[in-house]
C-alpha cells in the first residue's frame, strides 16, 4: 500500500518536473480558521505570480495538534511537504524525529544572514537549538492585560491607569469587585484563564517573579524554585485568599465573553483576542503590558515556519525563498492587521501601513513593546508530558487540592524523571 502511494506520488512529481516547475506543499494551522485561510491563499497567489517557476500548495490542517499529527504522518508516509507552519514549541519533538533542518544551512549570502537576524529576538527563542535557527516566527502572540475603563471609573480609579505591579493589581482588583445586595459577586476584579493553556499564563507570573521555567537546551526545568512557588502562590491567593478572582479554574474559552459582558474588570489574555474584543466590547477598554513583580514578563506563543529534511535541493531552495517572501516586512504588517497576531520584525512596524494602523489603534503596539520583557514558551524534550505535569500542578493548586509548594515539587520530580535521558 505504501509502495503504491509512493509510486503515485513519484508519478505526480514526474509530471511536475516535466513542466520544469518546482512544486511545494506546506501545512498550516489557524486557530480561528474561516476567513484567514483566504488571506493565506492570497499570499500564495501573490508569491506564484512573482515566482512563475514555483507552484505552492497550501494545506489547511486544523489546530496546532492536528497540524502536527498530519505533518508527521505525511513525513512518515513519504508524502511531499517541504515546509510547514507548526507550533513553535514542537521544535524538540521535530528534532527528536530528525525531520527538520536549520535555516542557517540555507542562508549563505549576506542578505540572507541579515534576514535571519531581522526578527525580534524574543520570537527567536523558541526556534533555536544549540545556536542554530530551526523556526522562523510567523503567527505569534503574547499575553496582555485588558481592562474595562468604565469599571475603573465606577470604582473610583483612574480609568487611564492600569496596574503596573502585582500589589497594584491586587489592590485595584479588590476595589473593582462589585457585589449585589445579598453579597453575591456580580463583577470580579481580575480573571486569569487556567484551562487550556495554564502553563502559558503561569510562565508570565514566574517570569515576572524573575524565573524562567526551563533551560535553553530544553532538558531541565525549575518548577520547584522558591520564586516560582511564590508566583503560583500569588495567583492562587487572588482567588482563594483575596477573593478578587473566582476560586477554582477559569475557563479559557468563555473568558472573553465574561470580559465583554462586564463580569470581570480586568483579564489576562492573548493578543490574538484583540480584534474580537475590539469588535464586541460596548465600553472603552485599554490594553497594556502585564504587571511586574521583580520585572515585567510574558511568554510568546504561536506558530513558526519549519523546513523539512525530506526534499530535493531545488525544493528546499524554493521553500526557503517562499518563507523569506511571506515573512517580509510588508507581508508581516498585513498579516498582523488581518489577524491580530504581532508583526514579527521591527521593520514591519516601520511600514507605512502598520504605522497608520497603530496610530489609530495604539493597543496593537502593546505586544511589540512587551517583547523587551518576553521569554520563550515552555518547550522541552518530552514537551507534552512535562507541560501536563505543570498544568496539573497549577490546577491542583488553584482548586485547593494541593499547596503550590507540594504541587510544583511533584511536577518537578516528574519532569526530572522524564528529562533524565536528555541531560
Amino acid at each position: 500500500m505504501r509502495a503504491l502511494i509512493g509510486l503515485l506520488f513519484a508519478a505526480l512529481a514526474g509530471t511536475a518536473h516535466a513542466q520544469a516547475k518546482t512544486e511545494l506543499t506546506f501545512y498550516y494551522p489557524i486557530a480561528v480558521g474561516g476567513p484567514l485561510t483566504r488571506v493565506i491563499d492570497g499570499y500564495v497567489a501573490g508569491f506564484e505570480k512573482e515566482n512563475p517557476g514555483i507552484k505552492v500548495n497550501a494545506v489547511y490542517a486544523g489546530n496546532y495538534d492536528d497540524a502536527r499529527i498530519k505533518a508527521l504522518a505525511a513525513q512518515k508516509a513519504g508524502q511531499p511537504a517541504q515546509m510547514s507552519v507548526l507550533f513553535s514549541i514542537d521544535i524538540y519533538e521535530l528534532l527528536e524525529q530528525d525531520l527538520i533542518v536549520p535555516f542557517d544551512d540555507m542562508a549563505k549570502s549576506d542578505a540572507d544572514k541579515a534576514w535571519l537576524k531581522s526578527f525580534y529576538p524574543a520570537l527567536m527563542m523558541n526556534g533555536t537549538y544549540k545556536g542554530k535557527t530551526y523556526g522562523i516566527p510567523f503567527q505569534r502572540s503574547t499575553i496582555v492585560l485588558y481592562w474595562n475603563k468604565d469599571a475603573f471609573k465606577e470604582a473610583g480609579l483612574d480609568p487611564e491607569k492600569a496596574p503596573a505591579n502585582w500589589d497594584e493589581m491586587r489592590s485595584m482588583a479588590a476595589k473593582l469587585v462589585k457585589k449585589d445586595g445579598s453579597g453575591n459577586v456580580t463583577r470580579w476584579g481580575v480573571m486569569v484563564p487556567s484551562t487550556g493553556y495554564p502553563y502559558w499564563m503561569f510562565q508570565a507570573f514566574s517570569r515576572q517573579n524573575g524565573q524562567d521555567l526551563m533551560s535553553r537546551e530544553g532538558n531541565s526545568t525549575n518548577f520547584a524554585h522558591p520564586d516560582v512557588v511564590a508566583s503560583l502562590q500569588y495567583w492562587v491567593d487572588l482567588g482563594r485568599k483575596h477573593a478578587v478572582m473566582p476560586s477554582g479554574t477559569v475557563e479559557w474559552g468563555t473568558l472573553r465573553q465574561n470580559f465583554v459582558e462586564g463580569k470581570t474588570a480586568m483579564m489576562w489574555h492573548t493578543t490574538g483576542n484583540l480584534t474580537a474584543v475590539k469588535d464586541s466590547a460596548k465600553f472603552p477598554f485599554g490594553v497594556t503590558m502585564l504587571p511586574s513583580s521583580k520585572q515585567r514578563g510574558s511568554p510568546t506563543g504561536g506558530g513558526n515556519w519549519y523546513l523539512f529534511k525530506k526534499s530535493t535541493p531545488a525544493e528546499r531552495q524554493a521553500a526557503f525563498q517562499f518563507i523569506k517572501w511571506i515573512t517580509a516586512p510588508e507581508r508581516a504588517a498585513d498579516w498582523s492587521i488581518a489577524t491580530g497576531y504581532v508583526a514579527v520584525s521591527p521593520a514591519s512596524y516601520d511600514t507605512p501601513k502598520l504605522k497608520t494602523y497603530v496610530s489609530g489603534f495604539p493597543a496593537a503596539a502593546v505586544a511589540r513593546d512587551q517583547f523587551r520583557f518576553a521569554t520563550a514558551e515552555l518547550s522541552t524534550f518530552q514537551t507534552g508530558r512535562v507541560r501536563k505535569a505543570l498544568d496539573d500542578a497549577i490546577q491542583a493548586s488553584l482548586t485547593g487540592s494541593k499547596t503550590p509548594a507540594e504541587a510544583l515539587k511533584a511536577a518537578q520530580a516528574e519532569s526530572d524523571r522524564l528529562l533524565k535521558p536528555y541531560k
Partner: protein
Amino acid sequence: MRHVYGWLLLTPAAILLVAFTHYPAVATLADSFFSAGTAVRPSRFVGLDNYAALAADPVFWQVLRNNFWFALGTIPTSIALALLMALWVNARLPARALVRLSYFTPTVLPMIAVANLWLYFYTPQIGLLDKVAGLFGAPSHNWLGNPDTVMGCVIAMTIWKEAGFFMIFYLAALQSLPPELEEAARIEGASRSYFFWRVTFPLLMPTTLFVLVNATINSFKLVDHLFILTKGGPDNASNLLLYYIYQVAFSFFDTAYAATLTVILLALLAAFAVLQFQLIERRVHYR
C-alpha cells in the same frame, strides 16, 4: 462449490474486518511490548515495562476511577429516563410527534455542538445555570472549575444527550408488544403498576440488555465533549480513559504507552460484554 460461493460472499466483509478491526487490535497488543521509537532511539522490545509503568501511573488509576463513576452516573439514570420518556410518548397525548421529536433532538446534535452549548450553561455568572440560580439569589458557582462538581456536570450533560437515543429503542419495543396483553390484564383487574412490573418490563428485557451494552460501551468511548468542556481538568478531575489515551498518543507522542492503555480499554470492554451477555441473558426472554 457451495463453499466457494459462501467464502466469496464473505470475503469483502472479512477483508474489512481483518484490515480495520482485527489486525489493528493485534498490532496494538504487539506495540504494547515495545518502547516508543524516535529517529535517535529506535523502538525496541521491552517486555512488560509499559505495563509496569501503567501500574505506577497515578493518572491512569485516576482516569479509571473517573470512568467508573462516569459509567455509574450515566448508565442507570439514562436508561431509567429513556424508559420513562418512552412510556410517556407511547401513550395517547396531543402533539405526540412533536414531543417525541423534542426528546430525540439532543441525539441528532453532534457531541461537539452539545458541549459548546453546555459550556455556556455552566459558565460562571454569564451561564444559563447561574443566571437562573441568580433569580433566586443563589451565589455564582464555578461549575466546571471545581473538581467536586465537574464530573457531575459532565454526567448530567451526557444523560441529556443519550436518554433520547435509548428512548427510541424502548419506544419501538413498546409498540411491538401485543395489545391483547393489556386487555387481558385489564379484564383480570391487574393494576397499572402490577402490569408494568410483571408484563411490560420483563418483555422489554431484550431491549434493556441492548441498551445496557450500548450505554456501557458509550461511557468508555464518548469523550468528544471533554475536548470542549474541560480538557480533562481541573487536575484530571474529569479525565476519562479514552481521552487520556488521546493525550498520550497525540500530545505526548508516546505510541507505545498509548497502545498499552488501549489494550487495557479493550480488555475491559470485552470483559463487560461477556459479563453482560452471560449474567443477564439468563433473565432475558427472547421471543
